[in-house]
């Protein structure tokens, strides 16, 4: 009996033998768990509202009338979205929004890319004041431009047109486009451009054939940024238009007299592009903000 007992104690001792301090390990594991928990809480705060608006927009009208509302998608229906899309001005607003976004993007690239290139590559007098001027315009509130622009557009016959909104949005996006593209061009080594010149390219050819391909990813990110800005801008678009509303302007101006289902569907349609844009931009976000704020 006693023999077996001793072996038992020895094995026990052997098991405990290498006296390792497990506390740091436990602390590390606990910290990891706290880290995950904090991340999950924040993710819930960020994602839950988007889930809820998606849920409301894909519930039938009858389901939206119920109380308490169901938190799980057990009443999937496209009725709410269909009714919304068939409301006056929504489809037209959607088309206008896409048109305004694309034209804004193109116009701000046409004007902004050469300017960004000049800021990145040339030492010219007035370069610093020019950059200060760009920073200054970024701080101007949209509302300051919108009201006087509405009057000017009324006089020139541009009021209530896609072009009017495109002009305003381009003015808003241009400073950022110039600052981003200039930082993109700064990242393209000068040597390759000079090599192209040595091999017989004209300055324009060197730019188009060598610099542009290397700058495309950054410029694409800047373009998406411009489109998002235009898609989201609501104040100027509603002041400058009457019948040619963009989607957010249409939703805003019909807020007061529209049923809840309409507003939920509108909110969902406005949020969906954000999910897509950020998905494509997520790798560029920190770089863009890191470079543009300087």
């Amino acid at each position, binding site marked *: 009996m006693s023999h077996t007992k001793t072996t038992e104690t020895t094995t026990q001792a052997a098991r405990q033998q290498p006296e390792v301090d497990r506390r740091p390990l436990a602390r590390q594991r606990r910290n990891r768990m706290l880290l995950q928990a904090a991340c999950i809480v924040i993710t819930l705060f960020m994602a839950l509202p988007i889930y809820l608006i998606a849920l409301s927009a894909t519930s039938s009208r009858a389901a939206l009338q119920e109380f308490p509302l169901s938190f799980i998608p057990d009443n999937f229906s496209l009725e709410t979205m269909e009714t919304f899309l068939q409301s006056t001005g929504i489809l037209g607003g959607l088309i206008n929004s896409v048109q305004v976004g694309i034209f804004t993007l193109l116009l701000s690239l046409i004007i902004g890319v050469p300017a960004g290139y000049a800021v990145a590559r040339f030492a010219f007098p007035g370069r610093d004041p020019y950059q200060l001027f760009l920073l200054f315009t970024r701080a101007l509130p949209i509302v300051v431009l919108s009201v006087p622009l509405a009057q000017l557009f009324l006089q020139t016959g541009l009021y209530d047109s896609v072009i009017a909104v495109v002009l305003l949005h381009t003015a808003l996006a241009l400073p950022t486009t110039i600052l981003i593209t200039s930082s993109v061009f700064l990242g393209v080594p000068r040597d390759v451009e000079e090599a192209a010149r040595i091999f017989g390219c004209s300055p324009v050819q060197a730019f188009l054939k060598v610099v542009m391909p290397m700058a495309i990813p950054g410029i694409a990110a800047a373009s998406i940024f411009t489109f998002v800005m235009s898609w989201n801008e609501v104040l100027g678009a509603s002041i400058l238009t009457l019948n040619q509303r963009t989607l957010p302007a249409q939703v805003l101006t019909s807020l007061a007299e529209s049923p809840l289902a309409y507003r939920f569907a509108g*909110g969902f349609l406005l949020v969906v592009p954000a999910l897509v844009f950020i998905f494509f931009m997520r790798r560029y976000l920190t770089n863009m903000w890191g470079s543009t704020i300087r």
Partner: protein
Amino acid sequence: MAAPDAPAAARPQPRPAGPRGRPPRKKGTSAAMLLIAPSIVFMTLLFGWPMVSGILQAFGGPEGLTTANFTRMTQDPYFWSSVGNTLLLIVVMIPIQFVLALAMALLIRAKPKGSSAYFYIWAIPLAVSDLAAGLVWLTVFTDRGYLNSLLASFGLEPVSWLAYDNYASMFMAVLIAEVWRATSLVFVIVVAGLQSIPKDYEEAAGVFGAGFWDRLWHVTLPLLRPSLQTALILRTILAFQTFAVALALTGQNFPLVVGETYRWYTGLQDANVASALALVVMTVSMITAIGYLKLLKDQSEAPR
């Protein structure tokens, strides 16, 4: 978070340094002027012209220059409450957003499992407009919305969160929606700032026995100062322009200054008073912007 295929702009590329250590720039004044001319013409037409005519409009009346528009503006019952609401919102919201954004950025830097998915989800509101944010949170706070549904499932009485006589809960709703929407901007700027800080500093402080809070307070935050300053000013200027979130959530019950401009222009059809209000917003933004430029200047002169 450093992406392998980051745009060339972000990668600091070694290049032959000029005499002053900066990349040599070409001298080509006429070419440069030709390239920036369209942008200058465009901006002058769309910023300069409207600004001048906006100022004239604000002081304009049927019989010449007048301050009557400003008198009408300040006598409107909504004006002072909109100023108060805007300032209160900014004062309460900005500290919350900065603490939250800093915490989020530090969490991401600790590289938890799935950090890129977290980053994506936390950045989504960056591309959500304030109108959409208001509508998103309307599903939560409306009388028969999800928050009251949750309360009901616990057997609690529903609350009219957005009723005009319930100022505190109305303010909370607008505040939460704005914190949700606009913290992402600060978060992304702070993440970008953290990426540019070498880890060595913190590790060195750790070796010398500094705890987490010491390292944060004495090492990380001072190094983050440029990013935090930029984010602060940018966020403040943008916060002055918030209006649709309150409109979507509360209608006219929680007026904000820019929302008042919109109401004077579209509802009351008075472009002159709307211009006067816009001028107020612009003046406040300009003062902030000048502070912004001053801070940027100080920071570039200070040793980093």
